[in-house]
């Protein structure tokens, strides 16, 4: 999975969690919570969906790695490679 594909995976999950949000103009380098109306429970939904849909575990200490789309891609792309290996 490329980093761009990884970003799309995260966006698809956010689209389920925050169905009223317009995701067409998300800046990849800006914190998601600064652009979208996401609360801590929504954030935990993202972690849960990564676990359910892709078998990816994000330990609590790594949550800050999911702040923006860019940081998600940096952090998650190797994890996607691990689970698909």
């Amino acid at each position: 999975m490329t980093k761009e594909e990884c970003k799309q995976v995260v966006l698809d999950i956010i689209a389920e969690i925050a169905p009223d949000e317009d995701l067409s103009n998300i800046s990849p380098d800006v914190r998601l919570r600064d652009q979208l109306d996401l609360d801590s429970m929504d954030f935990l939904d993202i972690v849960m969906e990564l676990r359910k849909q892709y078998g990816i575990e994000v330990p609590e200490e790594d949550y800050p790695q999911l702040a923006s789309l860019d940081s998600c891609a940096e952090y998650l792309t190797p994890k996607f490679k691990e689970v698909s290996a």
Partner: protein
Amino acid sequence: MSKSLSSRIVITGVGLTAPNGNSLAEFRQNLLSGTGRIANIEMRYMGQVHAGVCDYDARKYQTRRELRNSTRAGSIAVYCSREAVTDSGIEWEGLDTSRVGVYVGTTEHGNVETEHEIYNISQYDYDVRFWSHHHNPRTVANNPAGEVTLNMGIHGPHYAIGAACAAGNAGIIQGYQMLLLGEVDLALAGGVSESIQSFGIFAGFKSQGALAVHEDPNKASRPFDKARNGIVVSEGGAIYTLERLEDAKARGAKIYAEIVGYHLNSDATDAVLPNSERQVQCMKAALRKAGLQPSEIDIVNTHATSTPQGDAQECQAIRELFPVEVCPETRINNTKSYIGHAMGAAGALELAGNLPSFEDGLVHPTINVEDLDPECALGNLVMNEPEKRPEIRTILNNSFGMLGINSCLIVKKFAE
């Protein structure tokens, strides 16, 4: 003794969803035309069951995201509360919402979410890492009332009133009492039910021999019929705006009714079987508070759920308190014959279905009585067709629940 305006509590707005109506007007129309709307739904582990399903527009007051996080009971409570406030004509903008209380009756809350979560983790070999972080906020007892405060920005008290199937009446009584105490200036009070999403509710009634079965789902809930064989479980809700009379008058509000009497008591005899002696005591105490004689009650809206024993017990209680010879003007009816048993919403919804009688002078009938059980043959039972009366001024509404909780609420057509 006359009461001061601040000690008289009135109903000024109604919001509801029932299987056969999403507004008071639609609900009433269907109660007068004999139209129920019970469906067959697929129940996890059980196959098809009869159920009362509501089709209110949940998106009217909640975003898709809110609905994703909302429980069904919470969503119903939000819909009903917002409809009630709109109906009341209260100016919401600028209102001091710290003086608004939300009192929502529920038979149970949390079963639905817990069952869903157990099913969910069963798909992951019961690995609790997949248990939702939404489980606890969704299952706390105050969830439906709390969702109303979140949606409407209400800062006054909110909580659930758990009183089994008497909860709808108990919610209204709680609102009434809090207004009398001066704790709030506006009460959003009533009851809700999401029970049709819980297989456990259906399976429990089935194991108890109390789940209705009929080839036509709309005939399954048939209180007083000889062949009645149990309850049709339904979802729904009814929330009222309650205000002190002085406040309602000051803003020129439409007044649906005045709450003039109520009572709650406990059987202390059995967890599930009713007790007609205590039901009589409950109704008598409510009449006493209202300062009314039984013969002054125009409509007795029964709790009867279509179980063989429960209906007969209530009829025994009503026969004792409202004998036809003494109460020739009193009419008896039942609303569950249309909508099934809406559990925590039942008392509140059934009251709503009868409130328009003050305006139209009609008693909605109990339907589906094909072969009246002699044990339920009350002289003035209105069956299958509405009955026009010269005037309807008082309604007594019964709701009883498991663990022997009885409730009785009396409302009166408003008069100065």
